[in-house]
């Protein structure tokens, strides 16, 4: 209505101007008409501006043939004013950072952080780059929001150790008090298997009694237990693939297995937001790495085409292997990989696909089998399925699953298989029991219920946050919910205010995100009850009002903003 009104007004002004604009009149009248003209233009501009800003929602949704269900992912653009104010805030903090560095340099103020040594004065400086400056002068000031020691199971609720600082976060002191019953919105405890009671804990306990905790040898020597074998069979069955193998650490699974799979003369196409472990693995492998835009299939296809057409640089030989590396759920954006399109591209260009399901395994899909299940695809289309037990299963370690030959190859070639001590028996037992629970093999429907509960909680939480007017990122079905904070001071303030109200959240800033896109990241769990979520939401709303975080200017309606052409991948030969 407002827009209509303005439009009507401006049109009226246009009419009046064209009808009455006199060419030979006194100068004072000319000025008046000029003013009217400018005024009129202002309205026209304003009108267009409002139109654009109202309708420009970055909503990507697909109902194409490749997707069985609506794929709704939103990344609302940063409001201009907020972006300007955020940069201003960083500017002010940077100036004060320089001031403090100056004081430290001239020893007016005590320096409590590592610095250049006196006797290494003419060496290459170690602590002068931006990240060191950032740590010293920005991160230190709000450091109390991270690394808080907790002293209970990190389930739906947890206990925190109270901590104070007398020197503005340079050192901390423990007050020996415990902050009790903090609602935990930060752990990756998607299915609520981080518990100290229940069947998983009981069986882990039993196994500890039988096998002890440490294995003290590698899998290839005398550290291969029957529980390990059973777990690997179970993982393969769970994922619906031929074979699987497990490693003691998820990070090492990525960073040690990619070098075993790719090497010199291979090309790795990596999503720009891939996890550090994937990046490290790709770099260690010595292959050429090209990065495509986050979840952007046009960008991926362009790179694939170029790789096929031009081959290796200089020699122009074809690449030995092309490995596409993607994640299931991206933990900072909350987005879900466009797996059907990736698989279509992979088949068309004959590349290999490495899928890291760290966050999605257990948390997505009607049966909790990850993104493959979510999209209803065939697990055999993914060449290397990787995942971790650290999140949904509440244990530790990672797995690689796929064809039997692949796993046999990795068993003898992967560093983390040959040289690492095998997994601790209670951890293995936790994985077995929780996985059986999800599969329903324990004779109950607990696992199935938890998967459904998680999906419901996620949809509910995301919907309520959006209704309150917060900007959230990512896919509607992703249990990782990033909520934008933007300004540097609000990162600290949000964490502190939430903890004051007994809610534990994770706040994230640079370097984990782009500098202006600081955010809070909530991880929804099946262990959260409706009451807990409602309480958390009302507190978030209250803090959101206090800190003015309700930036969103859009009522989100799922609309196909990015037109999707059904016929793009039709000529795929299997």
């Amino acid at each position: 209505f407002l827009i209509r009104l303005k439009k009507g007004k401006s049109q009226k002004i246009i009419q009046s101007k064209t009808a009455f604009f006199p060419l030979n009149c006194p100068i004072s009248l000319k000025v008046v008409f000029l003013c009217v003209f400018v005024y009129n233009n202002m309205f026209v501009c304003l009108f267009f501006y409002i139109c654009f800003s109202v309708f420009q929602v970055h909503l990507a949704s697909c109902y194409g043939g490749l997707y069985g269900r609506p794929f709704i992912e939103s990344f609302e653009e940063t409001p201009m004013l907020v972006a300007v104010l955020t940069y201003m805030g960083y500017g002010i903090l940077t100036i004060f950072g320089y001031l403090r560095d100056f004081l430290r340099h001239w020893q007016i103020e005590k320096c409590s952080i590592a610095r250049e040594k006196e006797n290494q004065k003419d060496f290459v400086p170690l602590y002068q780059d931006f990240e060191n400056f950032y740590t010293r002068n920005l991160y230190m000031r709000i450091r109390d929001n991270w690394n808080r020691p907790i002293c209970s199971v990190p389930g739906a609720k947890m206990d925190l150790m109270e901590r104070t600082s007398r020197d503005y976060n340079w050192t901390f002191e423990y007050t020996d008090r415990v902050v009790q019953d903090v609602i935990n919105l930060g752990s990756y405890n998607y299915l609520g298997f981080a518990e100290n009671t229940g069947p998983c804990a009981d069986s882990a306990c039993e196994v500890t009694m039988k096998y002890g905790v440490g294995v003290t040898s590698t899998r290839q020597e005398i550290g291969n237990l029957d529980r390990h074998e059973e777990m690997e069979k179970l993982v393969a069955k769970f994922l619906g693939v031929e074979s699987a193998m497990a490693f003691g650490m998820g990070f090492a699974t990525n960073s040690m297995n990619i070098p075993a799979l790719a090497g010199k003369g291979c090309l790795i196409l990596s999503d720009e937001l891939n996890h550090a472990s994937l990046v490290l693995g790709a770099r260690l492998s010595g292959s050429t790495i090209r990065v495509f835009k986050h979840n952007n299939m046009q960008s991926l296809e362009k790179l694939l085409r170029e790789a096929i057409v031009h081959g290796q640089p200089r020699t122009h030989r074809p690449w030995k292997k092309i490995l596409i590396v993607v994640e299931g759920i991206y933990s900072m954006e909350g987005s879900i990989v466009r797996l059907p399109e990736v698989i279509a591209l992979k088949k068309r260009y004959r590349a290999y696909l490495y899928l890291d399901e760290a966050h999605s395994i257990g948390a997505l899909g009607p049966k909790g089998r990850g993104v493959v299940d979510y999209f209803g695809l065939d697990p055999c289309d993914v060449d290397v399925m990787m995942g971790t037990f650290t999140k949904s299963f509440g244990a530790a370690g990672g797995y690689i699953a796929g064809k039997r030959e692949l796993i046999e190859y990795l068993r003898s070639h992967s560093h983390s298989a040959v040289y690492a001590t095998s997994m601790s028996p209670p951890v293995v037992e936790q994985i077995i029991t929780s996985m059986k629970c999800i599969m329903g093999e324990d004779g109950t429907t607990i696992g199935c219920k938890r998967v459904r509960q998680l999906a419901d909680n996620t949809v509910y939480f995301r919907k309520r946050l959006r209704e309150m007017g917060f900007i959230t990122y990512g896919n509607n079905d992703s249990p990782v919910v990033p909520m934008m904070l933007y300004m540097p001071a609000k990162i600290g303030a949000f964490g502190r205010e939430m903890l004051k109200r007994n809610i534990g959240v994770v706040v994230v800033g640079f370097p984990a995100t782009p500098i202006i896109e600081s955010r809070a990241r909530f991880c929804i769990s099946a262990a959260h009850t409706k009451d807990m979520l409602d309480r958390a939401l009302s507190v978030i709303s209250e803090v959101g009002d206090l800190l003015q975080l309700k930036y969103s200017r859009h009522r989100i309606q799922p609309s196909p903003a990015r037109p999707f052409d059904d016929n793009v991948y039709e000529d795929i030969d299997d």
Partner: protein
Amino acid sequence: MNFKNFREYLAWLYYQYLLITGIYVLEPWEKSIFNSILFSAIAMVIYTSYVFVPIHVRLALEFVFGFFPPTVCPV
């Protein structure tokens, strides 16, 4: 937001100012430096505009109309 009294409202406004400028995270002495610099700058702007704006307005009118409005006498 609903406030009990005007003081609370002012406190909230000050809090917003702290958050937006980023000085929320600074130590108190840094905050006071920032505040004194900012407020003295604002005071100067207000003072200079009080002194100079009437003169500029008069000159602008003179330029547009080509004559002095009768009530304003030329210096």
